């Protein structure tokens, strides 16, 4: 997902959680970002800092952790990591927008199968939201 769209999604989800939990303001948000989607963390941080203005998240600190993208072949069981420098620029770009497109381009390095799963490190996940009531 594009970083700005992503930041918007994060702010909107955190706001919903804050309202549901009855938080007056959010102090800390922990995010996990998988490497498959090649999110530019600096752009994401900047977008979050812009979008959180005059919201419940205004004072929130964002703790962003990245996670390696681990793939596992469903045919032969081989596990490997996605590395951006091993695919072409436009393939990396397509995977950035729609990570599942990896199945159109990436094959198991051991048996050549396109039938693999992304075990970890696919997209963006909210780990925790903290705040004061």
């Amino acid at each position, binding site marked *: *997902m594009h970083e*700005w769209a992503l930041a918007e*999604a994060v702010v*909107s989800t955190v706001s919903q959680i804050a309202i549901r939990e009855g938080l007056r303001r959010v102090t800390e948000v922990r995010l996990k970002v998988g490497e498959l989607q090649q999110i530019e963390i600096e752009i994401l941080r900047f977008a979050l800092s812009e979008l959180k203005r005059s919201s419940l998240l205004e004072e929130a600190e964002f703790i962003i952790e990245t996670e390696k993208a681990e793939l596992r072949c469903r045919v032969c069981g081989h596990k490997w990591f996605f590395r951006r420098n091993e695919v072409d620029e436009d393939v990396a770009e397509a995977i950035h927008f*729609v990570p599942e*497109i990896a199945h159109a381009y990436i094959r198991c390095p051991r048996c050549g199968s396109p039938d693999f*799963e992304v075990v970890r490190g696919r*997209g963006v*996940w909210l780990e925790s939201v903290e705040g004061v009531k």
Partner: protein
Amino acid sequence: MADPRVSVIEDRLKKVNKVLSVSSGKGGVGKSLIASTLSLALADKGYEVGLFDIDFTNPSTHIILNAESVSPTEENGVIPPRVRGLKYMSIIYYSSGHVSPLRGVDVSNALIELLAITRWGETDFLVIDMPPGIGDAVLDMIRLVKKANFLVVTTPSKLAFETVRKLASLLLEMRIPIIGVIENMKMRESPFIQEQVEKMGLRFLGEIPFDYSLEEAIGDVNKLLKTMFAQKVKELAEKIALQTLGD
């Protein structure tokens, strides 16, 4: 804890007035041709129309509309390119013709991703070209796109209608709005489908005859719009617009 993409989907579709999901329990009944032609017909009436191809393993509307020379632009997400006046989105802009073998969970993820990043903006009708069957795509539409209305396509065949009966019962059970049923590729007079549809309490929208000139028109929108098929779809578009905007 939570997937941030899901909550933004509703926002992305906020300015979309009506979502029309063109679906069928059966494959090859004409969903993609109807979705494409219906979109063009609605746009022709002056509506702002989006067309979203969510048949991720076998997209085909880009071939019907000859939509490969454009591409989405990046701007706080993704803005669909214009194709013959339509806002058009398909996974082909990312898979560029490669086969993308996807399992159910990947299909869902790809749909969530595209729904979360695509900015449709002010739109009167968003037409969705669905893959065949009663599987992930139908369940995801129901789960993720709360304002989806279904437009169900069948052929005169009892076999096609049987799958449509199942799809319609599922939608009825889940209280999802069904605009009506279209009978496509009609070859001879028979009241069978209309009777069955009405017996289920659904609206029979009309029939489209089998049109031998259709295959020739695939990829050539001007030609497509001159077919008898398109003539029929335009009549249906009129009905569908009146019916859904009247709700």
